[in-house]
């Protein structure tokens, strides 16, 4: 569930990428990609492995030289030689880019020093950041003693330490247990709600749906669709589905529901009824009311909205995990 944003200034985007192109030998890894992220916005880059997500964010973080295009961070142009705009970026790479033999706090101390933090300010930020990712009680333990999920959270902490205005996370939940994944997603959600712009790449559709205000679907180095989840689904023209169980009376239930306004189709699947209807959540009261009026015993009800997986499949002809 999204919480209300703190602010959105409406001024310059925090990150603005225009017409990025990057080739490796004859293969175009990034082919004319453009997008922007505003303050407090979480932008998801959704695509399968090898789609060009990591190359795009490597360019966006000034790590990789682009063939053409432009990257601006808070209005300042960024390229692989830039120094100052990098202060505004917190980069969380896909690799566990920490020293395993050092403690979490020593790792953060090192990265803090790179960003010019020192003394009490640095120590304070280390504690705050470890608190954010839920590792404060393990601050002095070696990274190599952490579980996979804890390592990932420490990895995120290193990107947050200097309070960047843009947090770039490259598939931060790959290979993570469900508990840690949830902790990571909650932390990212919190940061976004506090006003941090977030660029989040993933090939997990559920994560993009849960976290992101807008999603860019990337495939073969190009953004093939972009927008809010709703906008993307509407592009596809798919309808929401309501799955209903009325014990032993599904035939009667189907008849009643077919007569409801807005219902496009009613399908009987075993003991269940599936109703295809636009904006299903808004229509729920009238569906329930109709069933009750006709004395049909409602035992379960589920709204199934068309998801990004379906959108991706429709746009690319491939599954996200292909």
């Amino acid at each position: 569930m999204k919480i209300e944003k703190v602010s959105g200034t409406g001024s310059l985007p925090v990150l603005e990428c225009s017409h990025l192109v990057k080739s490796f030998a004859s293969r175009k890894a990034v082919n004319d990609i453009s997008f922007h992220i505003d303050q407090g916005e979480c932008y998801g880059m959704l695509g399968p492995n090898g789609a060009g997500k990591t190359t795009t964010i490597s360019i966006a973080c000034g790590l990789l030289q682009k063939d053409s295009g432009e990257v601006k961070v808070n209005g300042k142009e960024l390229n692989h030689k830039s120094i100052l705009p990098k202060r505004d970026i917190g980069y969380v790479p896909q690799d566990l880019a920490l020293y395993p033999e050092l403690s979490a706090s020593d790792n953060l101390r090192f990265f803090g020093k790179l960003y010019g933090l020192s003394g009490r300010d640095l120590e304070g930020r280390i504690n705050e950041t470890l608190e954010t990712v839920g590792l404060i009680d393990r601050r002095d333990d070696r990274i190599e003693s952490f579980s996979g999920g804890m390592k990932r959270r420490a990895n995120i902490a290193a990107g947050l330490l200097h309070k960047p205005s843009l947090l770039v996370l490259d598939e931060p939940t790959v290979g993570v247990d469900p508990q840690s994944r949830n902790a990571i997603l909650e932390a990212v959600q919190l940061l976004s709600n506090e006003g941090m712009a977030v660029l989040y790449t993933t090939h997990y559709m559920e994560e993009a749906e849960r976290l992101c205000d807008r999603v860019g679907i990337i495939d073969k180095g190009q953004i093939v669709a972009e927008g809010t989840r709703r906008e993307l689904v509407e592009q596809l023209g798919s309808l929401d589905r309501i799955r209903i169980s009325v014990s032993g009376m599904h035939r009667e239930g189907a008849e009643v529901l077919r007569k409801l306004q807005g219902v496009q189709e009613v399908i009987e699947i075993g003991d269940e009824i599936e109703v295809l209807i636009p904006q299903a959540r808004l229509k729920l009261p009238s569906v329930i009311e109709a069933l009750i009026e006709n004395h049909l015993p409602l035992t379960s009800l589920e709204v199934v909205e068309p998801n990004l997986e379906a959108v991706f499949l429709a746009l690319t002809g491939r599954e996200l995990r292909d």
Partner: protein
Amino acid sequence: MRSIHALLWVGRRRAAKDQRLAGVAILFPVVIMLLVGVLFGSNHPAPIGLIIKSNDQITQRLVSVLESSNSVSLHYYNNLPQMQDDILRGRVVAGVEIPQNFMSQVDEGKNPSIDLIAPAGQAPAITARTIVTAAVAVVSSEWTAALQASKKNHISLDKALAEAEKLTNSAETLISKKVSQQQSPFSYTAPSNLVLFVFITLLGASSAFVDTRKLGVFSRILAAPVRPISVVIGHMLGLFFLAIGQCVFLVVIGRVMLGVNFGDPLALGVLLVVLSLCAAGASTLLGTVAKSSEQAIAIGTVAGIALGMLGGCMWPTSIVGPAMAEFGHIAPQAWAMDAFVKLIYNGAGIGQILPDVLALLAFSVILVVISSTRLRHVISNK
């Protein structure tokens, strides 16, 4: 500066946590230094084998000078194979064959040469060489001086020789005393293990660099407001300080515990700085070419030992024949050992070791330039 300081800080922290490093950098060299020193070094007179092929006056004089030395004890042999066998078995530390034409060489005003056979280089063998070389110099000087005095002053050669011997007896005693007083049994093993292990440690440390690279830490560092050149400088300075720290530690151990006189402190300091720079460059180069930390350790250990062998860390290059000794100088270790031998055995200063230091510096510059270029390339391309 900020990022260089941070990189040095993290390098120190990592080194402090690395138990392997403590073993390779500190424990192993000290143990091997002690072991080799105790086994092969000694303050007792070095037993040397002697084959005499002539019974002329000058040969007899050379033998008497050698016999009078406190630093060597003579064992006489009739044939070379037997003496070589005893050298191999460690019964004598070196063998000397005084040739039949020894006297004629001196008579002709040539710089006389005698054959010296020494096994894998240990301090006693080097002491023996020093004593024998000094004795030959003393005896040939006496003879030349006596010949000239006899002609000039119209006195008999025997009388002139007796006068010359009186003059040189004190010099001969001084040589023996000087050699026996200055040379610790660890005088060769201490610097040779220092050189050997500085390279092995630093080449081994390249595995940590490979790990860092593989973990993607460099990408994250470069995502910070840090220039690639700062990463290169910070990384290499960290290795340099590790090497110099190890050098200083081993020199202190050698001086305080093993009684090794490393000679002129300024020259020693310059040598250690250049040696450390060279090892840091070699380590960085290996770190940028190795595909895995295991590969870095394997290559580092083999290269460190092989180059150490070539460079005289296992035995002096002087005993392997001129061609091989020359060839050994493809290894920077050889130049470092040459400089150490000059400092320790010849009491050399910065001027005398300058050619060795410059050669080592040339190695350092080449290694640092190539490795920093590669490092910059590697970190900028993940």
